[in-house]
């Protein structure tokens, strides 16, 4: 007798749990689907990289500009310098032309193109593949066009990294603020950390178009753009701003020059344009 009552209770409890467990996500999903506004691409932030001008400069100067961009960005955002190239974390870096533009590179490209080091970063695409696949919306496209990262929500599944066609995302394979066991010094940072929140192991990170500077308002310039402008000969190599608008520098450059993007054929709609 007791047996039958316990059984039926367990069955009912199980069914209830199942129902709630299945029903709740559906309810939440429906709510969030209704809440999400439409994508307003009119106010999209974008960047124009004048590759033509960059490649006309002497090699040493090119290197100086590229280094300045990377250093400024990585210092401002506490990006650790992991020595292992398989596990390195990079928000902005340089790739050879054939790796940056694999669909446009052909066997008889000029030497200049073959040797060119192209600055690359997250493209903050119009239709980002990473956002499409993230199971927790830890990465999402904001209304102003930025593809954002929420480090608190990321579960470290790396699906976004599998989906990104540009290699723009890096994973924290280890604790970036690991210290040397004897000296106690930080292993991957040379100097003091900036106040920007560093990350922890197990989350993915990438360039955020300096969202913290955009938040402060005014005429925001990401750290890389600012750094490039300060190198002699580097002014105007990187331009950042709204893609459209009457006084949009980016818009003007897009109208007046021949530009291309990385892997256009994939349909992601990148917002980093290269004048070539």
């Amino acid at each position: 007798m007791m047996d039958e009552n316990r059984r039926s209770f367990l069955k009912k409890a199980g069914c209830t749990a199942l129902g709630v467990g299945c029903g709740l996500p559906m309810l939440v999903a429906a709510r969030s689907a209704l809440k999400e506004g439409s994508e307003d691409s009119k106010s999209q932030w974008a960047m124009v990289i004048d590759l033509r001008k960059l490649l006309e400069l002497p090699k040493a100067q090119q290197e100086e500009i590229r280094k300045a961009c990377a250093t400024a960005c990585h210092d401002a955002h506490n990006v650790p310098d992991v020595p292992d190239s398989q596990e390195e974390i990079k928000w902005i870096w340089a790739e050879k032309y054939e790796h940056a533009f694999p669909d446009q590179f052909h066997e008889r490209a000029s030497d200049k193109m073959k040797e060119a080091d192209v600055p690359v970063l997250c493209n903050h695409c119009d239709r980002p593949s990473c956002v499409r696949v993230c199971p927790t919306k830890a990465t999402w496209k904001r209304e102003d066009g930025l593809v954002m990262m929420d480090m608190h929500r990321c579960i470290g599944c790396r699906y976004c990294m599998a989906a990104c066609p540009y290699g723009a995302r890096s994973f924290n394979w280890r604790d970036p603020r690991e210290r040397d066991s004897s000296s106690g010094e930080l292993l991957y940072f040379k100097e003091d950390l900036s106040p920007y929140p560093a990350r922890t192991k197990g989350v993915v990170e990438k360039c955020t178009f300096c969202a913290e500077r955009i938040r402060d308002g005014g005429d925001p310039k990401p750290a890389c753009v600012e750094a490039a402008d300060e190198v002699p000969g580097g002014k105007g190599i990187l331009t950042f701003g709204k893609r459209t608008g009457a006084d949009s520098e980016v818009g003007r450059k897009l109208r007046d020059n021949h530009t291309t993007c990385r892997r256009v054929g994939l349909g992601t709609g990148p917002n980093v344009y290269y004048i070539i």
Partner: protein
Amino acid sequence: MLENACRGGKRYWILLGVWVLLIVLGLAAYSQQLTKGLTITGMSQDVVWGLYISQFTFLVGVAASAVMVVLPYYLHNYKAFGKMVILGEFLAVSAVLMCMLFIFVDMGQPARVLNVILHPTLNSLMFWDFLALTGYLVLNLVIGGMTLDAERKGAAAPKWVKPLIYLSIPWAVSIHTVTAFLYSGLEARPFWMTAILAPRFLASAFASGPALLILLALILRACTRFDPGKEAIQKLATIVTYAMVINLFFVLVELFTGLYGGMPHHVHPFQYLFTGLDGHAGLVPWIWVCEVLTVGCVVLLLMPNVRKQEKLLAMLCVAVIVAIWIEKGMAMIVTGFIPSPLGKITEYTPTQYEIAITVGVYAVGFFVLTVLYKIVLGVRERLEVT
């Protein structure tokens, strides 16, 4: 019914002890991964998924293959599968559990895994995969448990179990389709972005799953009094045969599409696999072993006289499982990342930690399988006595 798991002979407890030892080994390695991070694995910026996800892919197939016994028995009244069905359903439970564990150990922040439920993202295949796997686990546990219990009581199962059984048939196909869609929707990965990925997954699943089931049935027959029946085993062997034939055909179709047009994005991954690319040839021996085994198995399994000899059949089943394990695991998952979307090549080798954790997860699965099968045995033995 469940108390059957607590009663057993020496062999049972020793077997469970072996699994527990391996689980402890896996846990020790996993604690290292929790503290040090995923740096202790062989994965890298370019190859972001390795041994864990490849095992998940293989085991999802094994889990889905339960449909190959459920469908004939319940939809077409194929009575010979009477004793095999419960083995298939419980194998599915164990396999799905291992799948979910493999995904769990692969995560960088496993404590946050419930974010997938708290913040459901309908456009993400991973969200649907989570639902599909959880649902399938529950389905098979309930179906298996209720039907076994009904058998124990000598009565028919409650009426509501029948619609669940019918539901489990498309659900089984769907779990593997969703897993295939996880890969085949990524425009950054041309090796995966093929419509035939889902059919390929299913074909190889329906070969490897029943092959494993045959081996388990033969082991049970050898070690216990439980005999699923010669006809059931032979019918499963036929299923494995045709599934392997279709799988081989799909592989050849893929090779044609990839190689004939000569598009670098399509050709390079196959080149890396079969001949090596730019000096990197890590997977070449693996894939050739896999293809030789596949062709060999197809040729031999097609001969009814070979299938009828159970010793040969057992060896061929092992060969099938090895071949598909290589094909789905190393060949399909790792090759998706080589070359990278930028055209670079980074090879992948699992580390000892990864292997230890993988062994640990398999041990959990086999522990659960052993316990579930013991319950089946207990119920059957009781019935046979009465």
